């Protein structure tokens, strides 16, 4: 059973006070907090197993290698990949996207080809394609967005043509919370011979992910948003595509045989992992996956859907005159992300005010500048939830925003 009060005890940082108030951590779309189990896994690795992987015959190196590859297996199962050879360690989703843009894009995107994106992409799923398109004289197109922050799916059939080489779409928007129908986009992409990439940075931490069911060609995500350490992320690529891809970075670890003149590449997945990898944090991410599996991703999603429903109602019924809450109002197609704006308080003033009462929210453009601009604002405040957040914290947030509005409108009492 999903007992949020019990879960909270696993997260040491949630006991922290900010300016004498209990921390209300609502910046989970930026990064999640870490449970004791993940922190312990890192300490355990450094205290008991630290050695380089895949090279020593000594016991420690073999133990480190086992733990490291075991973590890959865990992550692979977590997304239901057919093989852990399809899972490449990277630093984060951004690096995963750059890997695809270079290793796959350089050889598969040609002059006149089209890359289809959504208007709600994080800069990480926009800039690498802009750069690739510039290098290749390819074009980038966007699926239009409706007023409620969802994609205009009626336009997709016209936009995916024989020119389309790649459809790359965020599964859950980090700015609006919108959950996009990426499976359907994949069906449409494949029908025209295009590939589909899913940016799972915000979805993999919050809902069950099954790459076989999604039938995506690429999936990218970050460890630190799903209870894992910073500096570790992953890329899933369908095996037949991965086998055809050239290495991204070259050097140690990714080679089979090297002479002074040339080299041949190691098998998958190591072909894409040059240099000593981030062993500790991979193991840490494996431990985060264990933690999530114990809770069950269906339960995590249900809990957050419940919070989302509650928060949507609280925002709607609170005394928040003029407040603009962006994104869809159907919790079935929305994650626990709330971006909002008020005519009377600038998001940065609101962020400072909320911080002083212990609430951590993000303010700014959320690394989605074109999207936030298209909403007609320079910045928004964003509260984003995770499995350890409670309805009481939703109350504290909505009350805090109400109080801030009053403060800035009427002045200090």
């Amino acid at each position, binding site marked *: 059973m999903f007992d949020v009060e019990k879960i909270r005890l696993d997260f040491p940082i949630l006991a922290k006070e900010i300016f004498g108030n209990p921390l209300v951590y609502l910046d989970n779309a930026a990064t999640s907090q870490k449970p004791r189990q993940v922190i312990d896994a890192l300490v355990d690795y450094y205290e008991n197993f630290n050695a380089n992987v895949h090279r020593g015959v000594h016991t420690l190196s073999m133990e480190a290698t086992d733990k490291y590859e075991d973590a890959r297996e865990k992550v692979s199962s977590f997304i239901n990949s057919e093989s852990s050879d399809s899972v490449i360690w990277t630093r984060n989703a951004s690096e995963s996207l750059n890997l695809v843009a270079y290793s796959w894009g350089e050889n598969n995107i040609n002059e006149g080809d089209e890359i289809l994106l959504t208007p709600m992409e994080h800069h990480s799923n926009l800039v690498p394609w802009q750069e690739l398109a510039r290098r290749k004289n390819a074009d980038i197109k966007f699926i239009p967005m409706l007023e409620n922050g969802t994609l205009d799916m009626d336009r997709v059939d016209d936009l995916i043509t024989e020119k389309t080489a790649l459809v790359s779409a965020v599964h859950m928007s980090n700015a609006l919370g919108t959950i996009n129908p990426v499976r359907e986009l994949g069906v449409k992409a494949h029908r025209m011979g295009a590939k589909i990439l899913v940016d799972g940075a915000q979805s993999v931490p919050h809902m069950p992910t099954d790459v076989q069911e999604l039938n995506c060609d690429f999936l990218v995500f970050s460890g630190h948003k799903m209870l894992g350490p910073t500096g570790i992320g992953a890329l899933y690529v369908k095996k037949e595509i991965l086998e055809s891809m050239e290495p991204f970075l070259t050097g140690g670890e990714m080679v089979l045989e090297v002479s002074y003149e040339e080299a041949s590449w190691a098998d998958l997945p190591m072909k894409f992992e040059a240099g000593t990898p981030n062993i500790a944090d991979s193991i840490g991410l494996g431990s985060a996956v264990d933690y999530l599996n114990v809770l069950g991703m269906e339960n995590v999603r249900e809990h957050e859907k419940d919070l989302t429903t509650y928060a949507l109602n609280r925002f709607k019924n609170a005394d928040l005159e003029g407040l603009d809450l962006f994104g869809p109002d159907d919790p079935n197609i929305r994650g626990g992300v709330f971006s909002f704006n008020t005519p009377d308080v600038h*998001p*940065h*003033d609101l962020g400072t005010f909320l911080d*002083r009462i212990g609430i951590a929210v993000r*303010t700014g*453009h959320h690394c989605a500048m074109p999207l936030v601009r298209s909403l007609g604002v*320079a*910045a928004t405040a964003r509260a984003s939830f995770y499995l350890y957040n409670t309805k009481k914290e939703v109350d504290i947030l909505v009350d805090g925003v109400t109080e801030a509005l009053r403060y800035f409108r009427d*002045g*200090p009492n």
Partner: protein
Amino acid sequence: MDRTKIDDIYRDRVILDHCRNPRNISPIEHCDLLGDAVNPFCGDEVHFQIGLSDEVIENVRFTGDGCAINMASGSLLSEAVKGLTTEEASELSIKFVESMRKSIDQDVDQQFIGELSALISVRHFPVRIKCALLAWSALEDALSTKA
């Protein structure tokens, strides 16, 4: 909630007052210097038009967009530089920026800045210091640009 904490920054109501009712926003008759500053990360902006009489700042027009601290800083600055020579305005700017960059436990000579001292308390919020300094970048831009 402990009001004194949030009042550290928006204290004496000076910042809130200047934010709600920014000074010197009317068009000015003639303009010798133009200055702009934009923070692309938050979209805040500040613009100054300055009218000189000899080398003395006779008229200032402030326009801008952004958070309370940014707007208050622009408004307070527009008041502070009126009547100064461009050289004195430059000196004030250097002194002010230096003061804002001092750590919170270092004393700041608040004599020279008058009402600007309301901005000095923004040092309690290190991430907001840049909000207070944007207007001063616009001033420096104006002082180095002839219209």
